[in-house]
């Protein structure tokens, strides 16, 4: 399978339409039936998927319309977790942090419904399924049961591995493991790498790994050890400075983050193009995917859309330049190719 050179994608989340947020509230309060809520989520998924496609994104997703949060969505479906109540993340934002109270078990698919629905409505051949990784799930949960965090994370890795295999069987081509917490404890990174590798054991599809707002020099030491196809990292947030750690990325691909998700200012296509030309100093075009820094959910919807539009326009500027050198497409590489 071939893709246009510099394939464009998203990291995962996208602003929920305001009407959907209202449905979330009503559903929470028990004022609408589950069926209606699910229908609203599906309609929003189609809307966002179309928005991604209209912006020209090659590898879209539905913006996580059915997920209220990035850990609870998974922990709620894994047997052995319990919830004692919400805790504050900042200001007046709370999340339901799960506690592992018994051995964790995989009882039901986690995101299969999402995948099947997105597959049924997208016009694109490949979509990217973001899934919170085993280390971050463990790090952002309480642990009452396991002797060590490593055991805890390893059991999560085994559960995720079952899910990934199921997704692969059902036609998934590209999953992305979100590990924003993986560098939290520098002395745990070594075993965290083992945990990730366990989660992807036996898979053949494409596996991306997203890490954000962390010290990438710490991650770079493990690029070669991590059994993933691609690292999706943020660069706009750090003004494309201090990229030398990329010298250690010698075989896998880079998902190059060119859109700042915390700033409402819309990047110009020329800025995006400039950033891409800069990263060519480290990574050749054939190993580059282009995406925003992180999920777009904190932005307002029209700004998120405009940012994606300009991201693709910026990519197109560089594609024209590459075309002159005869570079127009890249093969879709998976774990088999590494």
């Amino acid at each position: 399978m071939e893709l246009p050179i510099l394939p464009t994608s998203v990291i995962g989340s996208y602003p929920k339409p305001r009407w959907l947020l209202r449905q979330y509230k009503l559903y929470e309060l028990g004022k609408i039936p589950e069926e209606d809520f699910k229908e609203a989520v599906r309609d929003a998924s189609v809307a966002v998927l179309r928005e991604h496609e209209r912006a020209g994104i090659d590898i879209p997703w539905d913006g996580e319309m059915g997920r209220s949060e990035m850990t609870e969505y998974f922990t709620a479906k894994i047997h052995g977790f319990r919830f004692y109540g919400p805790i504050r993340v900042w200001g007046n934002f709370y999340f339901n942090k799960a506690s592992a109270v018994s051995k964790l078990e995989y009882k039901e698919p986690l995101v299969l419904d999402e995948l099947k629905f997105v597959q049924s409505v997208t016009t694109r051949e490949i979509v990217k399924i973001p899934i919170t990784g085993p280390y971050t799930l463990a790090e952002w949960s309480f642990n009452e049961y396991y002797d060590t965090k490593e055991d805890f994370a390893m059991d999560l890795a085994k559960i995720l591995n079952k899910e990934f295999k199921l997704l692969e069987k059902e036609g998934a081509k590209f999953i992305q493991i979100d590990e924003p917490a993986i560098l939290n404890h520098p002395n745990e990174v070594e075993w965290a790498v083992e945990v990730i590798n366990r989660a992807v054991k036996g898979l053949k599809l494409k596996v991306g790994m997203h890490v954000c707002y962390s010290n990438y020099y710490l991650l770079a030491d493990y690029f070669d050890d991590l059994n993933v196809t691609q690292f999706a990292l943020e660069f706009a947030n750090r003004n494309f400075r201090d990229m030398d750690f990329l010298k250690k990325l010698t075989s896998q691909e880079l998902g190059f983050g060119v859109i700042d998700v915390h700033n409402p200012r819309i990047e110009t296509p020329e800025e995006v193009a400039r950033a891409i030309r800069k990263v060519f100093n480290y990574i050749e075009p054939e190993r580059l995917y282009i995406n925003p820094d992180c999920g777009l959910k904190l932005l307002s919807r029209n700004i998120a859309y405009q940012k994606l539009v300009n991201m693709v326009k910026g990519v197109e500027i560089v594609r024209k330049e590459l075309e002159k050198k005869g570079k127009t497409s890249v093969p879709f590489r998976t774990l088999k190719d590494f």
Partner: protein
Amino acid sequence: MRVVPALIGSLPRPLGLAKKIELYSIGRLNEDKLEEAYREHTKKAFQKLRDAGIKVITDGMYRWDDIFNPLIRYIDGVEVNGLFKFYENNFFYRSPVVKGEVNLLDNPIPKWVSIAKEILEEVYPEATLKAVLPGPVTLAYHSLNEYYENLEALAKDYAEKVLTPLIKELEVDIVELQEPALASELSRATREEEVHISKETAKTVIEELGKLRKLWVVTYFGTPQVIPKGVILNVDLVEGSLPDGIGGEVGLGVVNARETKMERSDRIRDKLLKLSGNFSRIYVTPNTLLDFLPESVAWRKLKLLGRLGGE
């Protein structure tokens, strides 16, 4: 009594209060109603602390979003920036960006302390109330410094020009300084290069503040590397250990405020028994802010602390 249950820092902000604060922020609740909500929730907290047997308390910091805010909004020379991870927690604070010389502005914090004292008089007069402020070292470490030549100069000015005038205004006998940075500097997880404040400077700026009021210096997420004299030092025994060279009164973080699993009180008692010879008084506390726990679990842990009180 040699083992005294005490609270440090914050309690989990009740959801009901959070909703009111949100309503206020979008103009759907007036200031009086919000103030009423703060007082009601503070009163409830004091009653529950009384029932749990916690003798030295704070106001639960319901008016604070994190240990720096809103204080940093009342500092001239400081702008408030986006969200940053508080150590390795999935908890975020707004960071001070230092653009000029720091100076304390008019602020409501002394008033808040007086209000809490009034409520305490009404429901739990036997308790000792501490006022909680961020310590100068931790404030400096969590600042984005765009003005001072180095972090030490910034820490000194935070102490002299912000905390000193503020502490003088507070109607309490004990001021608690949140100083996790004495035990745990910024994590390498977020920054590669680090600038440091020397142990001597850290010690001196805190000891200077100790001349104004009795200080309770709370450290967590590690073993304190700086031991200021003449203060009650709170040590996190869950994630750190007791450093050499402290005696007299000490605060010991013996229950884990970052895990929901309940501690066994007999094990904690054993631990305290071994240490009791070294101290004239031990305050037993959570190891860090209870904000990291769901409300129901936080209170269960406070009740456990309460049962440790006595000889």
